[in-house]
């Protein structure tokens, strides 16, 4: 057994897998836990806040509680309508993170399918499909999202209202209540759909590149030789090998979607009052900057929470990419 005598300079351990690489990346781990804390706080804390904090009140522009003139009830102060900023930040985080996650999943479905088909088909089909991606990449797609939302906002409100009335007529209380409660949040649906629809390009390119490599490997040829059909090869053999890289780019899509959503809300074309998102809070904060009487908390806290969360998401995504896609460089 000549192999038993290992030469001292030969490394005999198993090569590190991606998760181990990731766990050793301190920054990425820290960012992960930060995001968990923010997400949990956004989901849990508003439930336990007293009801009077959640409502519009007389006390507008109250500074944070530790500043002069602050009230202990409003931890981070209040805005023009006397709404508690802490509460608004957390519900805004719900909206922003939720829209980011769901729209990223929408983009995954579209981009994953597109890239898989393009890569697996190869040849002319692939060339054409990728040329389309290139073209779409140079179109300012956010313009279309804005026009799309403006065009379908009215119809969508009508649809929800119709659903509410239908629930009322049929005595389906929960349908009526749900549709009625959803009307202020209607733009969220449109945002999720349209942002998911414009964010799939990177995902398609990545998946296609991986499929191009994977489909030439021996195990794919073997399963084809054993008579497996294209779809089942894609599903059983290609997809599992793609999952980590897809997770990586999913993580990087979320901050991109959050940024777009906040961009639209900042311009007044996204989330509207009474619903809030980080973008709409920033818009409120930016409107009250003036040299004389600074309402700094309305700008500082949303900006702080949003930029740290986006940073954390990007650092985590970068860490995932280093771990699972080491050859790629940006």
């Amino acid at each position, binding site marked *: 057994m000549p192999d038993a005598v290992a030469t001292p300079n030969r490394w005999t351990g198993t090569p590190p897998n991606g998760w181990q690489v990731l766990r050793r990346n301190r920054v990425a781990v820290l960012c992960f836990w930060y995001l968990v804390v923010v997400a949990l706080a956004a989901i849990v804390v508003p439930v336990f806040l007293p009801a009077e904090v959640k409502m519009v009140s007389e006390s507008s522009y109250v500074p944070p509680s530790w500043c002069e003139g602050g009230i202990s009830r409003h931890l981070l102060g209040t805005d023009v309508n006397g709404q508690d900023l802490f509460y608004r930040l957390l519900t805004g985080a719900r909206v922003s993170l939720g829209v980011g996650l769901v729209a990223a999943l929408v983009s995954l479905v579209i981009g994953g399918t597109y890239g898989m088909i393009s890569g697996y088909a190869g040849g002319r089909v692939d060339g054409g499909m990728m040329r389309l991606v290139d*073209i779409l*990449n*140079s*179109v*300012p797609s*956010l*313009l*279309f999202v*804005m*026009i*799309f939302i*403006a*065009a379908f*906002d*009215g*119809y969508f409100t*009508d649809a929800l209202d119709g659903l509410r009335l239908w629930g009322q007529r049929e005595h389906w209380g929960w349908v009526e209540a749900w549709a009625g409660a959803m009307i202020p949040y209607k733009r969220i649906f449109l945002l999720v759909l349209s942002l998911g629809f414009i964010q799939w390009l990177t995902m398609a390119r990545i998946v296609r590149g991986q499929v191009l490599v994977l489909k030439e490997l021996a195990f794919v040829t073997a399963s084809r030789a054993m008579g497996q059909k294209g779809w089942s090869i894609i599903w059983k053999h290609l997809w599992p090998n793609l999952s980590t890289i897809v997770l990586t780019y999913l993580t990087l899509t979320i*901050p991109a979607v959050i*940024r777009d959503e*906040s*961009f639209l809300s*900042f*311009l*007044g*074309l996204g989330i509207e009052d009474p619903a809030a998102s980080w*973008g709409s809070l*920033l*818009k409120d*904060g*930016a409107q009250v*900057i*003036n*040299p004389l009487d*600074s309402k*700094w908390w309305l*700008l500082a806290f949303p*900006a702080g929470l*949003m*930029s740290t969360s*986006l*940073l954390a*998401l*990007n*650092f985590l995504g*970068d860490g995932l990419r280093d771990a699972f896609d080491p050859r790629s*460089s*940006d």
Partner: protein
Amino acid sequence: MFAFILRRFLSSLVVLGFVVSLTFLLSISQKGGPFEREKLTAAAKAEREKNAELDGPKWWQLQRYVKRLLRGDLNVSLRYQNLSVAEVLGQKLPNSLILGGSAFVIAAVGGVAMGFVAAMRKDSGLDVASMFVALAAISIPSFITGPLFVALFGLKLGWLPIGGFGTIPQLIMPSICLALPFLAYVARLTRNSLLDVKSQNYMRTAKAKGLDDATALARHAMKVAILPVITYMGPMAAYVLTGSFVVESVFNISGLGMVFVNAIQNTDPFLLTGAVVVYSALLVFFNFVVDVLYTFLDKRIQLHA
């Protein structure tokens, strides 16, 4: 070469036509049409729609609009009284071009320089720090940096003017604000691409000839490493364009972005489509230039006409 350029040009025209038609159709399909908010009687509304050529089936409206467009007529704005779309856009376009152009130059030049320095001093403190800052700048969008810049440099420190547009000091803050994320992205792209090239054999040859690091990188590596950066210029132009919406709104610059946003909010279909025509024409032209430039720079590319 000529056939390639012609083909690209034609496909650009197809994209342009598609973008314009889609925009127009979307902008006239708002519920109740563009005159809904004016609370007119049915007869008055029909009259106004007829005057504005917005009556009849949507395809027909589009057809009439495209016919006007082919004659070079962008029609009139429904909200700016007595102004044609061409006049409104003509007033605002220069501001946007100055802002976008300067941001673009800052991002491209600054980004390549930063990436070059980082690649030269790989793994040094400078490299790590600049790449950390770059990732931060990519993550934080201009609608956060914008108001913060205004509050800090404009109001607190009073270094730069916060309003107005036209002079160089007034241009500094908005264009840096707009350029920052792209500068950071270009820096990362340049650094990584330079590092890839650095390990090539011909780089070792260049060093063996006795070139120092900086010269070798600048003369030999840069020629190849700049290619991904140039590819990114096309999409970057599109992003700078939309990014300028927020910057225009934060710094109160009366540019094309504000026209666009207002046209959406006021349901002004001709103005909206006119703005999109200008935007897409600019972008198509720019992408076309990038494509041609790319094929000139990269000798490995064979043109399949």
